[in-house]
């Protein structure tokens, strides 16, 4: 299959952090429990810049909880640091300002604002209170570059609420770039996308991962095989396996976990069929 590429040539400076350096995320013995239930049971994780890491596992494995813990949404114990800056125990917006960005399973763009306003907002967390009182004349250069990079430049004045599903997800990723996040935690970025949109997203993520640290939480195995540099498999709050796609696929424990859940396999099959139907006739599905 021919993979259409997003024109990310102009992303250039936008995806380049201020200092080119070797950032990495280091997680040691991360534990999250809700009441008596242990959602994440002491995991270790190291992800370096330039690597597109996928985090997979059956439902309830604790993948999203890891992302929640790293971004300050749920309290956790253990150690987690990005670029030497400790993350645990800090407020959500402080962690965001330290360069950690995330997306959600359901696209959560600000629907009443335009595409450009969304990106401008994302780029502006460091603005002085006085500059906030002025009207926005033209967006900063970084916003322009991101608009081009995510392919939404023509839709810049459109309300984000009326974008198609895939475009909303790209806008979300674009907001992380505009925000200048150096660690991107993406929660199922291609869920609900058709094959073409998946391919575009995959290419986009590859480009982004060259200069930033990216972790993708994903269910879609085909997407994973096509784009992952490395994979971490979680099961019941623990890390089951870690390595390249081939290594993980050959791991007997991983096979056991995935084959041990026939219901999930079935669900995956149905999802694949739906995606195929969507691909054949996207116009009808979108109307």
């Amino acid at each position, binding site marked *: 299959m021919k993979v*259409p590429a*997003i*024109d990310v040539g102009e992303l250039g400076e936008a995806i380049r952090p201020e200092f080119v350096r070797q950032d990495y995320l280091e997680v040691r013995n991360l534990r999250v429990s809700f009441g008596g239930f242990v959602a994440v049971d002491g995991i270790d994780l190291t992800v370096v810049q330039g690597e597109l890491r996928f985090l997979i596992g059956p439902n309830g494995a604790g993948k999203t909880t890891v992302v929640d813990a790293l*971004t300050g949404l749920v309290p956790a114990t253990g150690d987690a640091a990005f670029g030497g800056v400790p993350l645990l125990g800090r*407020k*959500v*917006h402080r962690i*965001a*300002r330290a360069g950690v*960005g*995330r997306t*959600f399973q359901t696209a*959560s*763009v*600000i*629907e*009443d*604002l335009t595409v450009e*306003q969304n990106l*401008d*907002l*994302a780029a*502006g*967390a*460091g*603005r002085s209170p006085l*500059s*906030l*009182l*002025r*009207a*926005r004349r033209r967006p900063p250069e970084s916003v322009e570059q991101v608009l081009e990079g995510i*392919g939404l430049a*023509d*839709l810049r004045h459109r309300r984000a609420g*009326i*974008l*198609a599903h*895939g*475009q909303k997800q790209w806008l979300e990723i674009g*907001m992380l770039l505009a*925000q200048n996040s150096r660690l991107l935690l993406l929660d199922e970025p291609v869920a609900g996308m058709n094959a*073409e949109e998946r391919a*575009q997203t995959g290419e986009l993520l590859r480009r982004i991962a060259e200069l930033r640290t990216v972790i993708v939480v994903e269910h879609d195995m085909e997407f994973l095989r096509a784009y992952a540099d490395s994979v971490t498999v979680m099961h019941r709050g623990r890390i089951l396996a870690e390595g390249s796609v081939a290594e993980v696929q050959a791991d007997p424990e991983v096979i056991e976990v995935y084959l041990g859940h026939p219901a999930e396999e079935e669900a995956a099959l149905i999802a694949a069929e739906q995606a195929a139907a969507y691909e054949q006739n*996207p*116009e009808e599905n*979108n*109307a």
Partner: protein
Amino acid sequence: MNTFRSLWATTWFRLLVGLAIGIVVLFVLAPAGLSDFRLSLLARFLCVAMVAVGIGLAWGQGGMLVMGQGVFFGLGAYLMAMHLKLADAGPGGVPDFMLLYGTGELPVWWEPLRSPAVTVILIVALPALVAGVLGYLIFRRAVRGAYFAILSQALVAAFAILLIGQQQTTGGTNGLNGFRGFFGYDLNDPANQRMLYFIAAAVLVGMVLIVWQLRRSRFGELLVAVRDQENRTRFLGYNPALVKTVAYVIAAVFAAIGGALFVPIVGIISPADVGVVPSIAFLAGVAIGGRATLLGPVLGSIAVSAAGSGLSETFPAAWTYFQGAVFILVVGFLPGGLAELVGRVRRLPARRRLRPDPTTASTTGITSGIDAPGPDTERIHA
């Protein structure tokens, strides 16, 4: 026609037109056409409209259902009333009601209000401080929606009870009244009453301009973002509690200034003017006019006040039912307020024009302009 259309599309031009109309109506037509009594009544409505402008910002833009603006209206009003009572009593004097109900000694916390400058500063600073501290504590805990509404309402109920309970120092149920002067001007002189009207009108126009700027600023966009996606803005690195607190403080200061001007214009302030019922009435005008628009809150508030005063003169008993019915109808069928009706009417002919001819619709594709699979995605692949 076309040049007018394109001019109309610029916010500056619309602002100038709106401003010109507003100034002509408020500063020329109303003073020329209304009796002194009616003009004074209008001045009173304008004071209430100031509260509405603030509610429009906090509720319409910021999504905070402020059901207790009576607290801030009351703070401004009582501060002003206390100063006027002290000024009437003269240097070293004690307000008349204290001699009647109390010990005849002035409480310590009344003393600073002898100074006009301190009074004016406090009218702005005290509500700002109260709203700032209270707002930040509430919003930091992510209290919102109905919980915030109930909290703000409980606050105003407590405030009214406190005022009633402290009869020796606040005048109790009777409130404070019988003011003779206003910063040295005789309040019984009709010319001075007209002057108060002009002050109120100018202050209201100023507040509308401030909100106009805030709405189009990045702060306005941020406020909408916090309203619709509070968590998302947090992950963008903003502190939503701070953003909401700023809007809440502005609304509180506007309400306090409205209250402070209400006192010399109406001549009385009592717990009945600041309690739960007036707090909801402030909100009703905003909801009916259209909370999310710039002028909806002002016009809605003035209309409700005017209708209330006009209809209660003719049908004293039926007015409350009428007000209730309008409120239910608007909230039920026009959630965006009467401003939504204006928008709908304006869009009607445009929609008819845009509706594609049924014979060509299938070939051009109605959705191509709105949704993804069309020229837009084509461009990305290229």
